[in-house]
């Protein structure tokens, strides 16, 4: 009898991971960002095990989708490996920070940080719906030295897009933080990596997202090995999440091609912001600071706040799009 319950438990984690992988792939945030809150908030799994299972599963999704992208030669492996110097260093520092936090019983800090970072990473993700090719800039000294000039074939525009990166040093700084967050929270931190290449280095969106995808795997491999020896990986949970997230990401990628309606993505943004708020609340709840009400009430407050927030953002974005269209007519 108990074995049936355990099998159901296993399958329920697989199911949760499929959903997490699916949402992560549709929003471009990656499986881990959704998986860690789902495991800790709904399954009652200790943060450490959730982070461990999530980080190692991130490798599976990164490798799975990167194999498709690199073949199309959009991802820039040279720029990616160059930036990995900073992300792997960041991942080492981040995982060691998590080890220290865990030993000092300060895990509530990680919950709050997780929620805040999740909410903030929504902003660039929402904003990025739009521009494909970055504004024209002059190459700087790092462009030549670090060979940041390249091109890719854009299937939608049906032409070769030439591009060059700038401010390599700024990219490295952002990547260090991306790696740090990845090691500290057990996520791929794809949003931050995209920020590093898009905002700092002015690379085209296609190159940014595909390169960040394969970089996530390398960063997560660094953190995962430290997690392994620290005992943050529960094999039962990790096996379930790795399989589940991979299926979810695969389904997400299939659906993403077919989704033409941007509005659907807003529903997922609402879910993500709910998870973000709930993580912050749980963090405060752990130390009985400000939030002392029960988990169910926290749950409903988070839902309410996220609906209001995403509603306002949606309204704001749509109004801007409308105003732009009016401007075009004039």
């Amino acid at each position, binding site marked *: 009898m*108990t*074995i049936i319950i*355990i*099998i159901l*438990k*296993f399958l329920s984690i697989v199911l949760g991971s499929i959903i997490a992988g699916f949402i992560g792939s549709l929003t471009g945030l990656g499986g881990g960002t959704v998986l860690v809150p789902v495991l800790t908030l709904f*399954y*009652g*799994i*200790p943060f*450490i*095990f959730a982070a*461990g299972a999530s980080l190692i599963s991130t*490798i*599976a999704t990164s*490798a*799975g989708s*990167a*194999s498709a992208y*690199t*073949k199309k*030669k959009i*991802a820039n*492996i*040279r720029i990616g*490996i*160059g930036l*990995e*110097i900073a992300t*792997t260093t960041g*991942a*080492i520092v981040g*995982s*060691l920070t998590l*080890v220290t936090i865990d030993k000092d019983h300060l895990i509530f800090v990680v919950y709050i940080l997780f929620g805040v970072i999740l909410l903030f990473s929504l902003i660039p993700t929402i904003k990025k719906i739009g521009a494909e090719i970055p504004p024209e800039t002059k190459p700087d000294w790092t462009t030549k030295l*670090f060979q940041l000039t390249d091109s890719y074939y854009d299937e939608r525009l049906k032409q070769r897009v030439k591009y060059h990166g700038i401010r390599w040093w700024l990219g490295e700084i952002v990547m260090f933080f991306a790696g740090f967050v990845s090691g500290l929270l057990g996520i791929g931190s794809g949003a931050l990596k995209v920020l590093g290449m898009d905002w700092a280095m002015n690379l085209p969106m296609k190159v940014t997202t595909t390169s960040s995808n*394969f970089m996530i*795997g*390398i960063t997560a*491999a*660094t*953190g*995962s*090995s*430290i*997690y*392994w*020896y*620290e*005992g*943050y*990986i*529960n*094999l*039962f*949970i*990790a*096996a379930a999440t*790795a399989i589940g997230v*991979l299926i979810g990401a695969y389904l997400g990628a299939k659906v993403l091609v077919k989704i033409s309606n941007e509005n659907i993505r807003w529903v997922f943004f609402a879910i993500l912001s709910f998870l973000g708020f709930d993580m912050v609340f749980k963090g405060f709840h752990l130390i009985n600071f400000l939030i002392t009400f029960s988990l169910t009430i926290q749950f409903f407050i988070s839902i309410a706040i996220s609906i209001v927030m995403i509603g306002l953002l949606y309204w704001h974005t749509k109004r801007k799009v409308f105003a732009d269209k009016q401007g075009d007519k004039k």
Partner: protein
Amino acid sequence: MKNHDDEVIISYFLKAGVIISVSFLVTGVLIIFLKNGGDGVTLSQLSSYNYAYRHHIDSARISLSNIPNGLTALDGLYFITVGLWVLIFTPITVVFIGWVSFLEDKNYLYVAMASIVLFNLFFAMLVIPRYVV
């Protein structure tokens, strides 16, 4: 990268890594359900998260040098272990292929940078667990 076949090779390596890893994971999961656990731990201990957390039933107690014995004894937990470690090594092969191709292109700046990345990866794997933590 001048030689653009590298991207195709990388893509095959990534795909192969994921397939090998998932096959080991699925086999391992089936075995722990059939044998009710593995490596001296019962299935119910393994799946009660808080019990496992308090009693340190986690990756730290699994010694990687036991993998050959664990696999020959058909211990499910060691199959899962191999699956997860294949996953960890999969992206590392990408950096390695990159390193070789930079060397072929005589792009020594990037040979050096890829070496730093590989150094970081092995530092995290071999040095930190033994000496730092």
